[in-house]
């Protein structure tokens, strides 16, 4: 299955997921929401990614069950396990937006008259993360070669990973922004898109389902609480 939704539909799902993740406290509701998000991804053709997300989420769910609300050592306090699961769900909701053609994103933002203060950072972010991903593998390779990656000193290892990635990320962000500016991303006039931007019937259906699911979860949360 490979249903294509409009960017606005995907944005709505992200916003609704963020609000649910922020409000839901019941573990059962969080786990079922994970199932709902998986269906949302699978119908858009992200089957393989869904399996990966579910495996990672599964690991953290098991860790939470093992920890019994006490956390696992100083490295994984309960709050960390609680947060990671929720962050992963937000990433799942954002998955269909990652890798979208930038022209489509910019054109939709222009169409809905989104302020540049929101539209431009979101457009940069969509490109930024895939670009930075390859930097991580180079950092890990170099750390292994220099024998600086050690489980005995996890905080040092973390610092060695984060430092170059932050510096490189800021440089990539600057270069990406310079490239985009020199190619007219800030043009205040009309932006077009080589793909048709249409809010179709399937988008309406998806939006209605997403809103209904969100309302249902809010009601259930109040009931459970």
């Amino acid at each position, binding site marked *: 299955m490979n249903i294509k939704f409009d960017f606005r539909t995907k944005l709505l799902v992200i916003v609704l997921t963020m609000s649910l993740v922020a409000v839901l406290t019941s573990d059962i509701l969080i786990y079922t929401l994970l199932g709902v998000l998986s269906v949302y991804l699978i119908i858009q053709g992200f089957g393989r990614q869904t399996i990966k997300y579910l495996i990672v989420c599964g690991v953290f769910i098991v860790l939470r069950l093992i920890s019994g609300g006490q956390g696992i050592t100083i490295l994984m306090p309960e709050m960390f396990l609680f947060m990671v699961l929720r962050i992963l769900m937000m990433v799942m909701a954002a998955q269909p937006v990652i890798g979208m053609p930038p022209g489509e994103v910019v054109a939709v933002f222009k169409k809905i008259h989104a302020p540049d203060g929101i539209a431009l950072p979101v457009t940069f972010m969509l490109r930024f993360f895939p670009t930075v991903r390859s930097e991580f593998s180079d950092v890990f390779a170099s750390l292994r*070669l220099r024998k600086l990656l050690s489980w005995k000193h996890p905080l040092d290892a973390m610092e060695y990973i984060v430092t*170059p990635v932050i510096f490189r990320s800021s440089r990539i962000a600057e270069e990406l922004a310079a490239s985009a500016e020199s190619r007219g991303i800030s043009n205040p006039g009309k932006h077009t898109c080589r793909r048709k931007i249409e809010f179709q019937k399937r988008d309406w259906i998806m939006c209605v389902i997403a809103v209904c699911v969100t309302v249902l979860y809010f009601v259930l949360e109040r009931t459970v609480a």
Partner: protein
Amino acid sequence: MENFKTRRSVIQFEDVSFEYPGAETESIHHIDLDVKEGEFLVLTGGSGCGKTTLTRLINGLAEQFYEGTMKGRITLLGRSISEYPLYEIGKKVGSIFQDPRSQFFASITEDEIAFGCENYGVPYEELDGRVSNAIKRINGDMLRGKEIYPMSSGEKQKIAVASVNAVNPEIYVFDEPSANLDMYSVEALKNLMRELKSEGHTIIVAEHRLYYLTGLADRFLYMENGSIKEEWTPEELLSMPEAKRQNIGIRAADLRHIEVDIPSRKETDVTLEVKGLAFSYRNHPVFHDISFQAYAGDLIAIIGHNGIGKTTLSNILCGMQKEKAGQILYNGKDVPKGRRKNFAYFVMQNTDCQLFGDSVEEELLLNGKGSTQEQRDDLLKMYGLFEWKERHPATLSGGQKQRLTLAVSDWIDTPILILDEPTSGLDYKNMLRISEHLKALAQKGKTILIITHDYEFAAMTCNRVLHFIDEGHAETFPLQGSLPRLYSCLMCQ
């Protein structure tokens, strides 16, 4: 040679100086420049001479994106550049940047090529035509619908040119476009530039490598410390005495006249022996049955087209990846993957990802806790880094970072050192410094393997070549008397 004097000016600099925010000195000072319509101009000079800043002033990024302070006046197509908003300059000046990885926004080629046109509101009905034309002009039909990320640097550079081309600007600005390209791709870039020139576009290129531009450029401007010091025609550049060229620190304009001093090697100790090596990603074979030997004191240039497996071989040699078949012997002993790090160290191309310390000195301390202050200072002096020892590695220039990664490799001191494109984006003086140092290490008995597309560097540095012909064949040959062979190997895809 065309006479441009009668043509209209498209870019004029009148006593222009520029300073980046927070900088202690001006990056360029008192520049006067008049670029005529259809002219092909090359800016050259050592690292940090101000050539990139000059290109940023032309495409408006220096003043409006980096928000520096400009004095003087720049006129672009008859109007002061300060009167144009940045997005308006982008329609008239197309920019192709040095690092292809950080200038793309889309993941698919057509989306990327259309991006500029979409931003300028080109009607939907026209977009596909513009994209198709841009693809045709780069002979890029085979690149249609492809993912950009896995492409070679040469293909990415083509897409970058096509993306600018689709907007159809009058002026093209290239910032070190050959820095990440192999010689075959440089030849393709040269043909693209020739076509742009024949269509009447004005072209400005900031570049260290000059050999491919002598048949294209109308003028070469030599910059030093932010000023234009000299101006040459291609004929003047080609006839420049070798001593002067080396003294001012620019790279060879004619690759046939490089002074080489091929290092000798004692064919005594075999330090590395590779027998029938094979590797594949999932079911896709990268190479199979690769065999060669390396001796103490060898400086081997590893060459072959992109994707043939040069980096993979290096990763296997230092234990970062596992071979599918074959044997790797260090000093005659079969060494398992986990222990190869003790014998071979790999300096990767991406220097930013290899530096982890808070200062240059701490970078050495990370792998040399037992070292003395004197030892560290000596090493930093040898690499010309002593005066920056308190600086954070991220704030160093590209050449300094490259030297620091080499200093770290000296510290780790494995008998075999592998380097991936160590001269990418380096000026002549830094290239020479690295070349001399590698030769000195080889003299001490280290075996050095260098993945490179840089003919000038390989000819000046190495004594042997390992050429990956295709996935099943690799050949080695001595460089003594075989420079034309090295050249033809680098030029064929």
